[in-house]
């Protein structure tokens, strides 16, 4: 269920690394816990984000939750489709429901992220 090629945080974000660019989204577990997503607030292209710092908010019918950046860098692109139709996050969290793309500032930060096996284990324990 959690794609093996991605990296994960304990706050339920994922990152897909392609060269020096990381695509960021929230996990299946996150969208399932949140319920229907109704609003996404992420910074515009050009903004700087720090690893594990809050970079935006995601609102569902249940609650508003903070989004934490798996990696640090500069926002290269924002998924305007997902902002307009937030249900993409529920329907396709690892695909069309991605949130932002980051130009990474420091590849070595990758070592602080979990692989799919570790993340799956974390969510199986109920967190």
């Amino acid at each position, binding site marked *: 269920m959690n794609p093996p090629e991605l990296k994960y945080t304990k706050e339920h974000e994922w990152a897909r690394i392609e060269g020096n660019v990381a695509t960021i989204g929230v996990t299946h577990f996150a969208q399932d816990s949140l319920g229907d*997503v109704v*609003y996404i607030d992420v910074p515009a292209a050009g903004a700087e984000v720090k690893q594990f710092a809050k970079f935006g908010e995601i609102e569902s*019918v*249940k*609650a508003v939750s903070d989004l934490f950046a798996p990696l640090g860098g500069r926002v290269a692109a924002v998924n305007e489709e997902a902002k307009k139709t937030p*249900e993409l996050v529920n329907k396709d969290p690892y695909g069309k429901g991605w949130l932002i793309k980051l130009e990474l500032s420091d590849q070595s930060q990758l070592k602080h992220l979990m692989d799919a096996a570790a993340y799956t284990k974390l969510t199986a324990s*109920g967190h």
Partner: protein
Amino acid sequence: MTAQTTIAGALDRRLLMDRSVPGRVALTLPASDVPLQAAPSADLLRKGLDLPEISQLDMVRYFTNLSQLNFSIDTNFYPLGSCTMKYNPKINDEVASLPGFRDIHPNQPDEQVQGALRVMFELQHALGEITGLPGVSLAPLAGAQGEYAGLLIARAYHESRGDSARTVAIIPDSAHGTNPASAAMAGLEVVTVPSNAQGGVDVDALRKLADNRTAVFMLTLPSTLGLFEMNILEITKIIHDAGGLVYADGANLNALLGIVKIGELGFDICHSNLHKTFSTPHGGGGPGAGPVMVAARLAEFLPEPVVVREPAAAKSSLSATSHHGDAEPVEAHHGAKPYAFAYRLSRPPKSTGKISGFHGSFSILVRAYTYIRSMGRDGLRSAAENAIINANYIQAGLKDKYALAVDRYCMHETVLSAKRQHARGAAALDVAKRLLDYGIHAPTMYFPMIVEQALMVEPTESESKETLDNFIQVMRQIDDEIDRDPALLHDAPHDLPVSRMDEATAARKPYLRWQKSG
């Protein structure tokens, strides 16, 4: 299909605007007896202003039918956790409707409204006594505004001591969302402290967070998990030793009435939601009220107005208004002796200022005062005790079917987790919606957020054993339905005028304004 469905089906669902017929009026005005004035030039007039044109009877039927769709404490069991949906005794409304309360104006001078001010003064005193925090302002209009008022007091206190680096509010992860929101609005930085496995504050984590930047620690007591904080004395000491103040979110005060004074536990500031603990109406039933109570040393910062009694004048006014046959009639004061006025509105010396217009929600204050006086000290304690017994009765009757957030005796509410039900295909939302079919209001869902599939149940002291038994039986039956006929839950409610709401589309594509069809 039940009879209820048939009746609801027969109900004319059209909006008021859709019933409009051009030229129809609700009232025929008499001929004008003043000269007609020319209308302003046409470009100043708003065009396309849609107003309903409808007869008086059709309008009365429209609103009366809507009012009969209300789900209320007067019609149904309403175990909405954290909201204390207790019965609102009718005597509260009767007293608030007395002409002397109902027909006064907030701009009348103090000497014309001594009775109203006396009610406010005595309510201040009662709330000070109940909480053990004697400085009271009745001005805040809701719980969250009470929080905000309390946090402004905390800031003003630190600043008055030249301690202006204290800008952090520490708040548990189980807190009501209003706590961090109020703190942010008061200009404080919010830092979260985690909960421990027993549902209390992680004391070691708190000790690490408390320092010379701590302005205030906000704690709900009992907690939002419905649990008493076992380490409360240690917690208030940690914060005081660090130089901070401790704020009590009084949303759950109903569990403590007459049993514990929160001031004696070390809290410095608290608010109380009169519409919860003191039986005044919620929401559409009337405005709220969230008085703020503080320790004596903080009273000078209270928001204005505060009602004070002039010590010298107290005797004379009381003898004229409050005692029985042998009291000197008011008329006797006419002539030589000047009338003495006991109560007046005042501004505390270092007041954080006004937080609401005039005196706060005055008619709500009268209702809370009536409740406190009609219950008395022993009655209030008994209310708290019965609220606690009722919640534990429900918890004991359901814990084999529904998981508990924390398996401990609870206070006035119990937090269940529908995680076993979720694993079998029905979420907390489905259980809650199915309850509506049984004529029971849904519990609070998905809060506190640290509990998976939370269902927060607060029966209050008002309910009989039969009502609690029925609720337990219905909850057990719903649990059975998950395996027998899950659609009963997924499509619920079935028997109400409106079936399952599409909350996601309502939030994504809100339809906020009436538009002419066709």
